[in-house]
C-alpha cells in the first residue's frame, strides 16, 4: 500500500506544529487538531516509520503517554477517550515488558499489539482512499452536466370515458324522468272490523280465563301487512266488545300484552 503524507488536500486541518529545532527534535501536537486517540496514534506512528507494519509499539505507547501528559485535556468528554486509550496502552506496555503468562482467555500481548497495528493501518488506508475519492472528478466541481437542460414538456390530453351502457342509461333515465309514468295503486289487503268482531265473539267463549288478545290471531295471517291489519282490527273489536259490556280488558304495563276475558252480562 502506498503511503501519502496526511497533509495533502483534504487533510489540511491537521495541525502538525513543529517546534523550533533547538528545543530538542520533538513534535508538539495540538489536541484540537485531532480526531480522537487513534488519529493521534497514527500521526505519532508516522513520525517513527513510513511503513506502519514496522513501527515499535513500545515506542508508540511512550509517545502517546507523553502526548497525553503534555496535552491540555480540558474538555472532559474529549479527555475521556484519550485517557481510556492511555490506560489501555499502559496495560499493553506492561504486558509487553513482562514475561508472558500463557492464558487461554486473553489475547497475548503480541496479538493485542498486532490488533492495534491493524487498526492504525486500516485507518491509514481509509484516509488514503478517501483522499483518492475526493480527488476524483466531481460533478459540478470538475465536470459539469448540461447547464441548460431542455425539459420534457408534458401535455395532458383529456380522454373522456363513457361506455355505451352509460350512454343508454343516461338516455333512459332522461326518458324516465320526463315520461308520464303509469302508477298502479294496488288494492290493500285488510281485515275488517266486522271480520274481527265476528272472530272475537266466536272465540272468546272458548277461553275460560284471561287470554292474550293476540292469541286470537287467525293462523292464516299471511303477509305482514295483513297481520298488522288483523291486529289493529282485533284491538278495535276488543274495545267495541268492552264497550258493549261483553268483555273485560286488562293491561298490566304500558306496551304489555292485552288480556281479555268474556264478561257475562248481569242483566
Amino acid at each position: 500500500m502506498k503511503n501519502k503524507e496526511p497533509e495533502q488536500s483534504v487533510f489540511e486541518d491537521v495541525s502538525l506544529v513543529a517546534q523550533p529545532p533547538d528545543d530538542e527534535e520533538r513534535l508538539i501536537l495540538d489536541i484540537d487538531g485531532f480526531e480522537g486517540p487513534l488519529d493521534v496514534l497514527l500521526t505519532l506512528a508516522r513520525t517513527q516509520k513510513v511503513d506502519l507494519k514496522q513501527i515499535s509499539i513500545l515506542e508508540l505507547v511512550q509517545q502517546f503517554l507523553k502526548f497525553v501528559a503534555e496535552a491540555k485535556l480540558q474538555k472532559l468528554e474529549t479527555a475521556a477517550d484519550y485517557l481510556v486509550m492511555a490506560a489501555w496502552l499502559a496495560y499493553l506496555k506492561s504486558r509487553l515488558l513482562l514475561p508472558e503468562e500463557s492464558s487461554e482467555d486473553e489475547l497475548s500481548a503480541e496479538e493485542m499489539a498486532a490488533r492495534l497495528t491493524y487498526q492504525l493501518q486500516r485507518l491509514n488506508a481509509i484516509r488514503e482512499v478517501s483522499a483518492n475519492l475526493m480527488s476524483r472528478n466531481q460533478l459540478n466541481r470538475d465536470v459539469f452536466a448540461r447547464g441548460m437542460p431542455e425539459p420534457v414538456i408534458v401535455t395532458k390530453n383529456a380522454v373522456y370515458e363513457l361506455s355505451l351502457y352509460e350512454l343508454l342509461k343516461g338516455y333512459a333515465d332522461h326518458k324516465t324522468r320526463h315520461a308520464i309514468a303509469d302508477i298502479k295503486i294496488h288494492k290493500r289487503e285488510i281485515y275488517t272490523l266486522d271480520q274481527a268482531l265476528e272472530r272475537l265473539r266466536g272465540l272468546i267463549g272458548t277461553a275460560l280465563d284471561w287470554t292474550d288478545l293476540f292469541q286470537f290471531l287467525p293462523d292464516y295471517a299471511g303477509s305482514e301487512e295483513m297481520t298488522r291489519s288483523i291486529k289493529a282490527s282485533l284491538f278495535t273489536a276488543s274495545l267495541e266488545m268492552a264497550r258493549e259490556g261483553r268483555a273485560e280488558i286488562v293491561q298490566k304495563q304500558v306496551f304489555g300484552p292485552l288480556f281479555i276475558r268474556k264478561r257475562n252480562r248481569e242483566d
Partner: protein
Amino acid sequence: MEIIEQIRIVEALLFASDKPLSAIALDDCLPEGSDIDRLLSELQEHYSGRGVILVEVAGKWMFQTAPDLAFLLRKEVEQERRLSRAAVETLAIISYHQPVTRAEVEEVRGVSLSKGILDVLMEAEWVRPMGRRRTPGRPMTYGTSDHFLVHFGLNSTKDLPGLAELKAAGFLDNVNTSRLNLLDDVKPTEEQPELPGSAGE
C-alpha cells in the same frame, strides 16, 4: 494551442453554461489571438445534422435539440375524465335526435344547456356541427361523429336501441312506451353543412 483544443473549450463552455454565451464572453476564456468566429463556425459545422445543433440567438450562442427531434421532448399523457350527468344526457339526446339544435336539446331536457357541455362533447370528438337549419335564425344543428360510432362500437346511429328495446332490456321501468313517440318524431330537413368541418360552432 491547437484549434481542436480551442474548439473543445468552446464546446464545453457552451454545454455547461446555464445561459446563451456571446462570442466575446467565450473569447475571454480562450488564449490570446484565438479566432472565436472561426471556432464557432467549425463547431456549428461539426454539430450540423446531429441530434443537437449549435444556434445563434440574439447574438448569443447555445446548444439546442435539433428541431426535427423536438417531438422527443414533448410527452403527451392521457388524463381520464368523467362526463357529468348533464353531458351524458345531452350526448344521448343528440345521438337519438340528431340533427338537433341547441334549443331543441334544451327543450327536451327541460333545462338550459350550459356553455361547457357542448364544448366538452366536441372536445371528446363525439359531437360535431351538422349544418344550419332552414328556419328563422338558421340555428346550427348537431349530430354525432364517426369517432362517436367507433368509440361506442356502432356501425351507425341506427344501431342505437329503440325505446322498446331499451324497455325490454330493463332500462325503462315504469315508463309506458306507448306514450313516448319521440323516436317517431318527424325530423326537420337539413341543409348540407355550409362550412364543412367548421368546428367550434
